[in-house]
């Protein structure tokens, strides 16, 4: 694992991702309308918003899963909108999916090796003759893949078919597959869905390391505010297809329109949770607790 520690993200640097005036219509439905999004290199940028706001659609446009109706998308200053998905990927964009999409009939390790596809370069005929160059590259790829599996916490599932993994493990494997090729930009669509708070905390750690150790810029969609507040450098709020607000976590939390449209009066924000913790303290030893198999 390369131990590159990056300088802290600065808004002054040229943006890594720059989305301008992005719109997408599906027939009569305007899923996104004129969305701007600027992501600084090395940052973790969260996109939040109510269900159906258009968050996933933004990701889909960036990764060329769908073609935007209008607008431009630049990665490192280069236009990537409208390019075929594999070309976008080769520019250094990787993603995960809201409804996990692994290769169900392949093992964990194989999934990750496919993720490494674009970093491998030895041509097929060398594989036939198993040239030293091929063997070296293959061995290195496997080693890297195992390391990433370890990194994502699913190394013990290297040999399991993805179809047979529990939901949470599928999510982690998907992340591993996305980062193994060392993309510039990683798009995570609700990575914490299906994870309990403790697992969510582990995920936060994982994303931090992805940024710190692999130097990958992360944009994530998430509904778990704990996760968002814990790692996001900046947050963009989308509502009904348009940007509602943009700012630091603190700014967003204080924004009335955001609270009205999305957060509501909830208790899952760190402040609330802290309060909860306090009230819970000492309540652990209640009576009647039955340890079936302690």
């Amino acid at each position, binding site marked *: 694992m390369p131990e590159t520690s990056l300088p802290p993200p600065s808004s002054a640097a040229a943006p890594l991702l720059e989305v301008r005036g992005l719109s997408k219509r599906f027939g009569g439905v305007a899923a996104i309308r004129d969305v701007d999004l600027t992501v600084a290199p090395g940052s973790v940028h969260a996109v939040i918003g109510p269900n159906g706001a258009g968050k996933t659609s933004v990701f889909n446009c960036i990764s060329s899963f769908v073609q935007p109706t209008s607008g431009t998308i630049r990665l490192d200053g280069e236009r990537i909108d409208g390019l075929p998905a594999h070309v976008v990927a080769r520019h250094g964009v*990787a993603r995960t999916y809201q409804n996990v999409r692994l290769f169900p009939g392949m093992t964990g390790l194989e999934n990750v090796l*496919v993720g490494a*596809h674009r970093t491998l370069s030895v041509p097929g005929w060398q594989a036939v003759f198993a040239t030293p160059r091929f063997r070296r590259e293959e061995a290195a790829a496997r080693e890297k893949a195992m390391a990433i599996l370890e990194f994502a916490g699913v190394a013990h599932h290297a040999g399991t*078919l993805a179809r047979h993994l529990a939901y949470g493990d599928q999510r982690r494997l998907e992340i591993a597959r996305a980062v193994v090729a060392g993309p510039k930009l990683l798009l995570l669509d609700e990575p914490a869905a299906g994870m309990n708070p403790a697992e969510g905390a582990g995920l936060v750690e994982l994303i931090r390391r992805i940024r710190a150790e692999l130097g990958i810029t992360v944009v994530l969609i998430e509904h778990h505010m704990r996760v968002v507040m814990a790692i996001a450098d900046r947050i963009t709020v989308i509502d009904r297809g348009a940007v509602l607000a943009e700012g630091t976590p603190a700014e967003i939390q204080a924004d009335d329109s955001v609270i009205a449209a999305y957060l509501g009066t909830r208790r899952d924000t760190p402040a609330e949770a802290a309060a909860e913790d306090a009230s819970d303290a000492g309540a652990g030893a209640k009576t009647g607790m039955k340890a079936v198999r302690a």
Partner: protein
Amino acid sequence: MSFNVVTSSFRVVRREREAGAEALRIGLIAGVAAVLFCLIGAYVALDKRDVVEGVASFAAVALAAIALVAGYTSAATANRQGRTPRRAVLLAGGAGLAVGACLALMVLATTNLGIRTILVAASPALVRALTFGTTAGSSGQIFLLLAAGFGLGAIGGALATLVPERLRRAIIRGVFVVIFAGLFRDVFFSIASNLPGGVDRMIYGSAGIRLWPAILLFAAVVAWTILRAAAGKPSAARTGGRSKLSIVLLVATVLVLPLITSDFVAQVAMLVALYMLMGMGLNIELGLAGLVDLGFVAFFAVGAYTVALLCSNGPLAIADVSFWVALPVAIVLAAVSGLVFGLPVLRVRGDYLAMATLGLGEIVRVLVLSDALAPVLGGSQGIIEIDRPVLAGISLNTPAELYYLALILAGAVAFISWRLQHARIGRAWLAIREDEDVAQALGIDPVASKLVAYSVGAAFAGAAGAVFAVLVGSVFPHSFQLLVSINVLAILVIGGLGSLPGVLVGAMVLIGLPELLREFGEFRYLFYGVALVAMMHIRPEGLWPAESTKREMADA
């Protein structure tokens, strides 16, 4: 038939009936099967061929087997439901009786009702064949049919309930081995004829195995099975037939069989090897990349016609080069045609791709056959007088020699596919098969990867076509039917999709068997169809599934 088959995670289970009702049901189904067997004319046809010379014809064995199996299954059900063995055997007899009754009804209908205007095989010859020496259509004959049915059913039942497990296995295996020995008379006879002293004539008569050798063989197999079981060795069947020994045996068979048997067996082996070549090509397309290709035969045709045009002495020849020059040309041309075909159709997915490729395959066949291209390709008259390959001054003429040529090619191709499968491109293929969109989002160019799969697969088929052309010495458009593509597909699935040894086993079973059964002429494809169904029922995952398939099936 897109590769990503829809499945349910739950099984549909049939609720089992009470043993008596079940016996009746089984008996009737078996009875209908027996009647159909007779009425399609199979009985009369198979009656001419003996399993045990002068004792039991294939027809008789088949009918008896139907009654026996009916009895066996009924008794096994009764057993499971906790009935006493006596009752189980009785029920089994009942099931057998039902079979006999169905046949008796058929005999009555045939002799009295003139059903022959519709059912052409309901002939006097059939009734005669079923008589056991009694008068056709007499009450004696009816009684005999019923009694034989009951008896056979009861024997089947007894086998299921009264005979101890080990002995039962041994007996069943013994019977199978004897039938096998009778069925493949030609193979074993030709092996035996290598032995001195006319052993061949001692073991085999003109139509089947002789009685005493059959009994000896049966006894030997039974004894061997019991002894082995007593020695505590797991039978090969239970270890999945894939012990080291069985692999060594398989390889040895593959290597020497054509030498110790007849030209015919070598010829069949040769065809098997050709289909292996094609199978491995399609395996790349379908097994790995998930591209259903029903026009695969087109590439085979390209290979064959290339060699024909380059190596023929006929009027259409465009060159007269040696096979060794033509072979690589054929392979390259096939690969190129794979590219050309692939280009337009590869944005098409799943069943649409199946149909598009089927269409392309048919287009090629029709074009090759057409009067329009006849001046170049010979149209329906084909291309004749293709030279055999010459190696170090020796012309490879016999099927056995050509077999080794095909085998070497198949080996090379197997090696290449195996290596590709475990490299970057192989993983890309699998990924595309599993989820094309996601694969693309990971930087895999789906069209390029599919094209590689297409042209590698096509190249393999082209090699097969090249050998085919020199094997037959002529090429005709009628050899490139849709059926060939379907056959190759069936080989893959029966062998186990995505598995290289599976291709070998699949080709042996699906090409070897029907070729060996050529003498059953008009019933050959009927049996072939039944075999396809039966094999898929016994092993839905294929005879020798790929590792990943086995993993998947583990939880199903």
